[in-house]
């Protein structure tokens, strides 16, 4: 049987503050940097050494308090690519299926489930 204490109220406010603190936010950033490095390695590059490669243009965008998970504010980090070809490469066109390199990188690091209350 679980021990309970009468009159005990968990301090949710400070727990929320802890989860928004740099101590925990660090994990979101680390995961995002891992996704970025996998995406950069798996995205196709041309053989031109002087070219500007889309694979090198994945950037990590920290969102310290921009995401709500199950009603609670949490720190998060996004991986983005602002290259001109990024959308066509990721999602494809009528001639070429999307490579989904960023989604695959995300699925390798974490569970691909989006923002759900779990």
């Amino acid at each position, binding site marked *: 049987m679980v021990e309970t204490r009468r009159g005990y109220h968990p301090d949710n406010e400070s727990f929320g503050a802890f989860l928004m603190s740099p101590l925990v936010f660090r994990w979101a950033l680390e995961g995002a940097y891992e996704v970025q490095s996998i995406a950069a390695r798996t995205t196709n590059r041309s053989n031109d050494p002087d070219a500007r490669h889309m694979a090198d243009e994945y950037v990590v965008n920290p969102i310290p308090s921009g995401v709500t998970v199950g009603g609670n504010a949490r720190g998060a980090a996004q991986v983005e690519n602002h290259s001109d070809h990024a959308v*066509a490469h990721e*999602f*494809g*066109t*009528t001639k070429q*299926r*999307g490579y*989904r390199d960023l*989604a*695959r990188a*995300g*699925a*390798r690091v974490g*569970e*691909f*489930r*989006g923002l*759900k209350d779990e």
Partner: protein
Amino acid sequence: MTDLAPLPDPNAVMMALLQSAAPDVDPESDEAWYVGTAYPDELEQRSAPTLLVGHLGGPTDETGARPAIDVTVIAPTYTAAQGTIEIIEPAVMGARFAVLEGGWKIVIDRVEGQGFYEVEWDDTRLRRFMGTFTLTIRRGGTTKP
């Protein structure tokens, strides 16, 4: 060392679910749906919905796997695409098993989805919707034929 049962191809599992939900002939266009992993020939001329499946990845262990799988619905009109999604989304979310080609039956413990969203592309006449499902599938099932 233990001999583990083989893991099914996640793309094949999803294609089996979509094919079992698909009508024999699309009521609007009188053509069959296309379900596959690559574009069909003459995608732009098709009037029936085209369904594409793509495995993104996901963790595996000795009991099974949790593959994330992309499903892309391409249809000539918004209404046709939404009608297709209304058929396939509940069929996939409610699936508890899938029967692959040859009768290999796979147990599905859980399905999680994120809904379908429109992704615009270079063709304005064809509407494209994408959704991602995460299946929790088990190894084995019935004996692989």
